[in-house]
């Protein structure tokens, strides 16, 4: 009789010991402490640029070597001029590019959206036709035709704040691109693309130049620091930590509901079928 109790007792003792181990181990990680101390309000950095007269001159940009424009010209003529005209002056198939700025041209070319595959539809990200030097050559050529417009933003995320980027993103970007950056459909076949493939420079270019239907956020609206913060946060969103498990596409309750109803309830109903049906001899 004593022997019969030995195994269960050992099992219980073992499990209890494991439970006690959890107290001996590292304490629970520090939880957020409530604090009412005032802090700098998010977006405070915007103050520096409230009364800037000419935005494009003060925002820090990367220089585009002018020498490349001779390389860029044949590329432009071969690939772009059928819609934008030989001197980028625009035709009825494509807009005038003169004075749009290096950032604009670089965004469209470097994301593969230009050259356009299907005129008329919203351009989509495609594999890029040109090498990076070729892209810069095209940019250089187009900017040599006329000055103006935002340059290629010099992104520096070293000192950027993810948290402030999160805040700015939530106010200005999440409305269309979704708080997780996954993108969504807009009215009339337009759509806000997913941000998951965008490079830091492309994110900053899109913010500054407002491609397509996207609004333009100039230095008077978002400071360079804020742009850097947003870029840093979007870079995080591209590979967010998913501590809860499989991220389900980050589109919110649509996929969650689908999983709950179809997979979750489905499996449970299959289990009900197994339990509920009377046993047969085939087992």
């Amino acid at each position, binding site marked *: 009789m004593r022997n019969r109790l030995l195994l269960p007792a050992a*099992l219980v003792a*073992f*499990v209890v010991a*494991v*439970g006690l*181990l*959890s107290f001996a*181990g*590292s304490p629970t990680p520090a939880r957020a402490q409530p604090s009412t101390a005032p802090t700098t*309000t*998010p*977006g*405070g950095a*915007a*103050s520096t640029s*409230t*009364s*800037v*007269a000419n*935005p494009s001159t003060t925002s820090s940009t990367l220089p585009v070597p002018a020498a490349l424009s001779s390389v860029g010209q044949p590329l432009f003529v071969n690939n772009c001029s059928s819609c934008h005209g030989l001197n980028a002056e625009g035709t009825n198939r494509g807009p005038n590019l003169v004075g749009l700025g290096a950032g604009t041209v670089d965004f469209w070319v470097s994301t593969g959206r230009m050259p356009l595959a299907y005129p008329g539809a919203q351009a989509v990200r495609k594999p890029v036709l040109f090498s990076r030097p070729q892209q810069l050559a095209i940019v250089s050529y187009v900017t040599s035709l006329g000055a103006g417009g935002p340059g290629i933003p010099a992104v520096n995320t070293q000192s950027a704040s993810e948290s402030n980027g999160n805040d700015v993103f939530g*106010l*200005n970007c999440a*409305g*269309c691109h979704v708080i997780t950056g996954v993108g969504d459909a*807009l*009215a*009339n076949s*337009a759509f*806000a693309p997913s941000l998951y493939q965008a490079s830091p420079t492309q994110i900053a270019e899109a913010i500054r130049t*407002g491609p*397509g*239907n*996207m*609004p*333009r*956020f*100039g230095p*008077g*609206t978002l400071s360079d620091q804020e742009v850097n913060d947003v870029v840093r946060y979007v870079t995080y969103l591209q590979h967010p930590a998913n*501590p*809860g*498990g499989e991220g389900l596409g980050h589109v919110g309750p649509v996929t969650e509901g689908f999983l709950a109803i179809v997979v979750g309830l489905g499996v449970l109903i299959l*289990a009900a079928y*197994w*339990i509920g049906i*009377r*046993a*047969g*001899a085939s*087992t």
Partner: protein
Amino acid sequence: MSPGGEDESGSDHVSSGDGGGGTAGPGGTGSGGGTATAVEDLRLEIPVERPRRIERFVALCFVVSVLATIGLAITYSLGGQNQAEGALLGVGLAGIGIGVAGWGKYLMPQGPFVEDRHELPTTEQDKRAFGASFSRGKVAVERRGFLGKLLGAAIGVFSIVGIFPFLRSLYNPRPGNALDFTQFRRGSRLVRIDGHPVTADDVEVGGVLTVFPEGHEGDAVSQTLLIRASSVPITTLPGRETWSPHGYLAYSKLCTHAGCPVSLYQQQVQQLLCPCHQSVFTILNGARPIFGPAPRLLPQLPIMENGDGFLRAQSDYQEPVGPGYWERNTSTTLNPPKKAAGQ
């Protein structure tokens, strides 16, 4: 029938492991002998031909459960990890569940047994007896009819008074005309969420900014979408010729449908889209809804620029912002609000 197989301890030895005494011989909890007719009832048999296999399977389930749950305890003790915890907990519980359900399904008699349904209604006699009992009491109550009425009055009054705290105590801010106005006044500077005022140069054409009346940053009702649709003034509707200096349009951010922030500005087509129910507004003619469930134009805030560069409100909105409500009437819409006019 083998009466010799009686083994009382068998019935509490529930772990159906396949190693122990299970194979010792036919045994049973029933005392042998005279119960032959009962135990030969096919309905009390188990429905499988090889219970040994099921036993092994059930035992395996329970063993897996114990192991998984111990694994869970170890994982937890080492600091925890969500996926491991969920998986081990799931396996541990599934082991118990599948084991017990399988035990019940394959190793327990499944009948079919039949049970008579009892008559739900009672007999006529019962009903009459109930009626008699009730009327006996009813007579006693009716004899003092006025007491009954007074009791009714007492309980009725109490019921009504009892609701008071649930309404009056909650009713702190009476609605009043809170829904008719925002915090914009004549001359209010438009400021960003961080409190910095907006100047006429700040937003580029095709740009957009969320603004508030100065001193009310983050106010849910006053939130306004400032759009620079052009570099020159735009007349969105007759009578609004002076409302958009430098091509700035200011619309209430609250959708007239269900109050979501309408902040999806599509600058090429000059449309606003509401993220909640996809109403579409065209901003160049007064944010008229052209698609979706929104019933009314987004209210436009008249703004001005007095030469100091700051954008200011000319007045409050001229109609209530946001979704409709019962007291919202046409006069509220047409007449400029008194408060705004007074300042």
